[in-house]
């Protein structure tokens, strides 16, 4: 089998699973307990925090462990909105964000916040100038993803951050879930106040993640209770998952440069071969896109059908993002960049990880071409 759905989730590294098992079976104390057993768990927790902080070049008290990307995005967005609403009630995002950003904005809109959804251009890029012109005296938050999960565009986070240095009241949140390990981004620079990461996208485990919160930024907690995670996220910490996250992040970043090169090479080859096919249009822009995502439309073939046909050949891919595919919604990003409903409905996303191999290119391309041949006879 060839697994090409790494933007949905990745295979956990064996070393990560081993850490998880060892912690879950041996160090199962509650880190908040006073006894020695609790202390051990607490030590593991602070070691994890320090390791994550070191890897990201930030301070350990800027790391909040979460249950993953969705929670991180929700906590950042709602946390800021609720905390700073007295400073203003205008918030800005783009129209191609992941649902875990988009929906919190919708919720806040329903609560009376003014939201600007900045559109992207026909390649899928948001313009820093458009963000700036959306800014009002009431603005308190800008949230922009780093790498788009559907077509892989890399947004100009540095430039947006640069603009935001002139707006001291505005906080900047970056959804870095698809970017980490694939496209370098320095959290400590670019005026990033909040940044979301998820464990299972980097060969860690589902249900783990972090929210980076720059020192000095206040957040209204979503979960209150036992005051864990410096009051930002109550609930007994998932120590095995957190340790596993710290390890996954280390392994991912250690191999990042090498894996990026590898994925870039596979991606270039795939794009090259696929784009030669008359029915295929590559939706991922050639420039400024992440090394692991290729999105294309196969004219006349429904994405969902394509996925299943490829599955029979042992190739696992997805339509749009995994999260929205079950709801049978066509790719929001493709619609936003001006594709029509049909084109969006006929799109496929291949997403790579460092575990993919260059030798897989030919079988992938063959499978895709065969499927197109088979299906075009029956679909029109």
């Amino acid at each position, binding site marked *: 089998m060839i697994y090409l759905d790494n933007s949905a989730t990745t295979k956990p590294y064996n070393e990560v699973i081993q*850490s998880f098992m*060892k*912690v879950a079976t041996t*160090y199962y104390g509650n880190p908040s307990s006073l006894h020695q057993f609790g*202390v051990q768990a607490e*030590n*593991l927790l602070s*070691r*994890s925090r320090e*390791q994550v902080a070191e890897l990201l070049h930030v301070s350990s008290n800027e790391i909040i462990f979460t249950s993953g990307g969705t929670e991180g995005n929700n906590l950042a967005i709602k946390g800021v909105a609720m905390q700073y609403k007295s400073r203003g009630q205008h918030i800005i995002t783009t129209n191609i964000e992941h649902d875990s950003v988009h929906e919190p904005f919708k919720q806040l809109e329903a609560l009376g916040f003014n939201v600007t959804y900045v559109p992207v251009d026909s390649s899928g890029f948001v313009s820093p100038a458009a963000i700036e012109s959306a800014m009002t005296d009431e603005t308190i938050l800008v949230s922009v993803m780093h790498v788009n999960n559907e077509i892989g565009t890399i947004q100009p986070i540095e430039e947006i951050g640069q603009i935001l240095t002139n707006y001291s009241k505005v906080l900047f949140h970056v959804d870095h879930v698809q970017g980490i390990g694939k496209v370098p981004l320095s959290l400590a620079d670019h005026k990033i106040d909040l940044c979301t990461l998820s464990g299972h996208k980097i060969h860690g485990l589902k249900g783990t993640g972090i929210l980076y919160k720059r020192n000095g930024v206040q957040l209204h907690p979503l979960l209150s209770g036992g005051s864990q995670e410096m009051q930002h996220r109550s609930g007994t910490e998932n120590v095995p998952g957190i340790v596993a996250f710290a390890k996954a992040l280390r392994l991912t970043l250690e191999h990042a440069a090498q894996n990026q090169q590898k994925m870039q090479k596979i991606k270039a080859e795939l794009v090259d071969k696929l784009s030669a096919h008359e029915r295929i249009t590559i939706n991922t822009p050639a420039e400024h896109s992440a090394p692991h995502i290729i999105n294309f439309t196969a004219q006349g073939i429904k994405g969902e059908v394509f996925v299943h046909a490829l599955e029979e050949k042992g190739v696992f891919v997805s339509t749009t993002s995994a999260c929205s595919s079950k709801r049978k919604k066509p790719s929001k990003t493709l619609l936003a960049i001006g594709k029509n409903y049909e084109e969006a409905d006929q799109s496929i996303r291949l997403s790579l990880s460092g575990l993919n191999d260059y030798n897989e290119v030919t079988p992938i391309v063959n499978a895709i071409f065969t499927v197109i041949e088979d299906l075009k006879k029956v679909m029109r």
Partner: protein
Amino acid sequence: MIYNHILIRYGEISTKGQNRKKFVAQLRKNIVTALSAFQNIHVKYTRDRMYIHLNGENHEPIIERLQQIFGIQSFSLALKVENELEAIQEAALEAMKEFDIEGKTFKVSTRRAYKQFPLDTNELNYAVGSHVLRNTEHLQVNVKEPSVNVRVEVRSEATYITCFDYRGAGGLPVGTSGKAMLMLSGGIDSPVAGYLAMKRGLEIEAVHFYSPPFTSERSKQKVIDLTQKLTAYHEKVKLHIVPFTAVQQAIQKQIPENYTMTSTRRMMLRITDLIREKNESLAIVTGDSLGQVASQTVESMYAINEVTNTPILRPLVTMDKTEIVEIARKIDTHEISNRPYEDCCTIFTPSSPKTKPKREKINRYEQFYDFETLIQEAVNNVETLEMTASSATNTADNVEDLF
């Protein structure tokens, strides 16, 4: 710009006359140990300078590390070249290229320790300065307030060119003033006292009083972490953990409440003094700051200090809390010290400790009980940990592979 050397200036050591060699050798030893991770470097010294030959190592992490080593007044990235005018001109130009920006000014100041060099100071200043001017676009000369002072040091073996000084940590090399025992509580003050003692060249061994079950594993971890922080200034720091429960319980039973604090401090001091003797050290360092708490009035100090005539050094004695906190933040111990766990000083604090205890009284109270045996027992059961700059902060059993 690739520098090939770091030039280190000693500062206070240079006033040491006959003993100077000893100081310089200790400084070299400390530098070599601190930089042991950088395998290619070579450290050489002369009477008044030390040179680190970088041999291709990245200078940035080395600079960071050097800033924590006591005994260094200042240091500079340097280019070492042969004693030839052309080589000197080229190197100076190379070093100045990164400053070739609108508005930047420079001057050249030559020091000619090697008098045989054919050009004299003024000629060399002129020759180097004009070469830089001719070959850059934006730089201008300003001899009064230059943005960059290009220093050319002609010595018999080579010429060194430096443009920018880093401030060193100052003080004396750790180890040149002997060894002292630091009474380390886990509070904000004592780690700062340890840091300042090290700054004056003292090697430190920490002594901590641990009273399970009244104080927890977490409070012990706190002290381990603090000790770890101090290893930034000296590779190895020992931590002696004294089992103190029995002594504290005996004090609670035996001594009138308002005198328990005084007695506790006396017992701690006696125990520390015995550990000091065992470890061949000649002084004790504490975090006392005059008037801060009941045990730190002169009357209290007088009553407590009675049990030993070992020198007790109190680097913080005249400092305000804000000054102490400022240093604690600088040396990164403040956050650890603020962790909210009971320590042996807080656990049995009487509601109104005597601020002016009397020696006669405390002596009288203590004489009815055989504290000597308990003290000996505590000393015999001391657990000693050796922290090094590279040792992990985690004491839980083998967890390395988890991360």
